[in-house]
């Protein structure tokens, strides 16, 4: 009897699993019906402006194809840990049909064989042409070891966003000249930036407390501080790995960059900055309490939105001092565990078409296609996209390493320990070099 109970229980379990699996698979289109009638495409995306622009246009795709697109929007910190179990699922049984991949997951996901190669689909498609993408984007969130696994969705090249109203204030320019004996200019090196940020840190209403900080910064472990610091490192000529995956960071450059980073945190950033994540650092800028912020180049349209910002029309963007910042980006990918790969591909073809990519850009989206960057309408609305195209072209991506999340974790920890004073910059860089070697793919 007991055996029978277990058998029945087991059978029920199997039947219920089969039912769930069947419910999601694609069915061929009947005559007259739309291609993907009744198909639901499950997508995981991060809660960022570019996702909102896609959501705003979804109706068009659903109208055209009959598919329902279900976008699950998550906080960045939760995405990786939620994705991995789904990506390890057997072929066709994962919860997500389509995903967006952050550049520092690319090597990890591809080495593990979790993403579908798109070369055949691209060759068969009359809509997709990868030549239109900026080469730096295609290298980062397009190709991996010669094959194409992703199409670049949006860029998050970092840049220096600053308050133009303060920068062009004649009184401040005069004060600067009196103190430094030279004209106020945008910083071209990290040391110049740290000096300028300290100068801009001031009490503007005379109540004895600083109310405008020279630099808004994000010292929270792991990725906020790691991403921010890499701009300092890259600008000063340092890098973690070369393109062949060898560790090339030297003690000298690493310590110098880290010392400038910590100095800026102590002399020009709000006192709470060592624990700030993106939201807090952004709020400091949006409330008019900071002169500058090294952040994503597309923060300017966001800071020009009166609903979110008190500095509308006052922000400008320029390259990270030194000209080389951190390049970031996301790519569209179809996991091998996708239950609806064809519908997912149709969605990619639609969302990455010139028309939709341009519409997204006009809403404030961060382009990856050269034709969108150079489009007359886009440039008329966002003249600074001319500079942004150069920034995206010049920036350096996070090293293509399969254990990139772990490298970020170590990097974030040693920086945070240096800021907290529980480690010297020297020891921090030593540990960083040692761990970068341990975690390297070769």
């Amino acid at each position: 009897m007991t055996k029978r109970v277990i058998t029945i229980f087991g059978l029920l379990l199997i039947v219920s699993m089969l039912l769930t699996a069947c419910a999601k698979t694609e069915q061929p289109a009947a005559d007259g019906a739309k291609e993907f009638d009744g198909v639901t495409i499950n997508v995981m995306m991060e809660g960022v402006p570019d996702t909102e622009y896609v959501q705003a246009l979804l109706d068009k795709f659903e109208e055209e194809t009959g598919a329902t697109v279900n976008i699950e929007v998550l906080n960045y910190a939760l995405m990786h840990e939620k994705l991995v179990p789904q990506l390890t699922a057997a072929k066709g049984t994962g919860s997500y049909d389509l995903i967006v991949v952050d550049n520092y997951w690319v090597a990890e996901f591809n080495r593990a064989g979790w993403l579908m190669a798109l070369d055949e689909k691209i060759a068969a498609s009359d809509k997709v042409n990868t030549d239109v993408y900026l080469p730096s984007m295609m290298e980062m969130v397009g190709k991996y070891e010669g094959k194409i696994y992703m199409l670049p969705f949006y860029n998050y090249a970092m840049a220096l966003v600053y308050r133009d109203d303060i920068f062009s204030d004649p009184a401040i320019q005069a004060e600067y000249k009196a103190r430094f004996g030279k004209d106020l200019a945008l910083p071209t090196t990290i040391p110049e930036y740290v000096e300028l940020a300290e100068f801009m840190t001031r009490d503007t209403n005379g109540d004895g407390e600083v109310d405008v900080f020279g630099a808004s910064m994000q010292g929270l472990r792991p990725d906020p501080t790691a991403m921010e610091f890499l701009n300092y490192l890259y600008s000063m000529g340092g890098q973690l790995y070369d393109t062949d995956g060898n560790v090339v960071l030297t003690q000298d450059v690493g310590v110098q960059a880290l010392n400038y980073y910590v100095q800026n945190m102590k002399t020009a950033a709000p006192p709470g900055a060592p624990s700030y994540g993106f939201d807090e650092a952004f709020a400091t800028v949006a409330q008019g309490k900071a002169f500058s912020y090294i952040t994503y180049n597309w923060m300017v349209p966001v800071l020009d939105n009166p609903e979110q910002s008190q500095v509308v029309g006052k922000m400008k963007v320029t390259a990270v001092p030194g000209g080389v910042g951190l390049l970031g980006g996301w790519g569209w990918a179809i996991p091998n565990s996708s239950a609806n790969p064809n519908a997912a591909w149709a969605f990619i073809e639609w969302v990455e078409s010139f028309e939709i990519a341009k519409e997204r850009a006009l809403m404030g989206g961060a382009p990856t296609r050269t034709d969108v960057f150079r489009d007359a309408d886009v440039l008329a609305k966002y003249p600074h996209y001319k500079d942004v195209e150069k920034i995206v072209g010049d920036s350096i991506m996070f090293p293509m390493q399969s254990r990139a999340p772990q490298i970020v974790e170590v990097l974030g920890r040693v920086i945070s320990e240096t800021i907290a004073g529980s480690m010297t910059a020297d020891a921090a860089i030593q540990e960083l070099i040692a761990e970068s070697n341990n975690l390297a793919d070769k």
Partner: protein
Amino acid sequence: MVKTPLFKSLPSRDRTAAKKLVAPAVIGIWIVILFPLLYALYVSFHDWILSQGKIGEVNFSNYITVLKDPLLLNAAKNTILLTVSVVVLEIAIGFGLALLLNNKRIRLRNLYLFILLVPMLMPPITVGLIWRLLLHPDLGIINYMLSLVGLPQPIWLADPVLAMITIIIVDVWHETSFIILVLLAGLTSLPDEMYEAAMIDGASAWQKFKFVTLPLMAPTILVATIIRMIAALKTYDLVYILTRGGPGISTETISYYIYKVFFVFLDMGKSSAMAFILLAIIILMTLILMRVMRTAEQ
């Protein structure tokens, strides 16, 4: 199925039926508790990084690396500091408030009780997010209030020492309700006769507390302490939301460190080994605490 006294006491014709009725629960426990636990034990003896392919040979290397890991040692120190602080503070404050609430002459007792229980109804993630906003050095309401009365405005989460104190404060704010509830239930169920006898003997309020309330409450306090201690040793959510273990590594707890080794480093073997060490410590500490309290009771 194991022959338990429960089944033996039944007439033989009922035994099969009884076993059938219990079977789903037993299977459920196997699937959701015992199997994962045993599987984790198995994994802890193998090298296995999720993104780097297959499970390796049986070996003890995980336990050896883990015990030598300075970061785990630091996390253990932080966890002990946090656990001792929150358990002592919560029991002291919770017992004090429970004694006050047990006084039947206080008006609006139930209202106070309700207000004091509200934090318990909130999930830790919500608590963490609310406090993170309240504690924002420039934009948070706490520092704004402090500035109104001219007090210094601490950078709550950005200073290594203060960050730990802040986590302790938030945890005490959140978890004391639970202690109040348990201890108040205990106090309400104490027999009145003992207090009447003490009154006849002319005992003072302090003597009544020391010789009647405290000894009678000892088992309840023990239970509350053990439950809180076990939960505090596993503190993860507040750290995740408030500090991510920072600044530096000053607020990294064992559970948070295990989470990182598992979900960031995808190191199944090492994280399982650490989880088992934590489990062993919790069981050991619970046993010691029970022994100590039993002796004290006698």
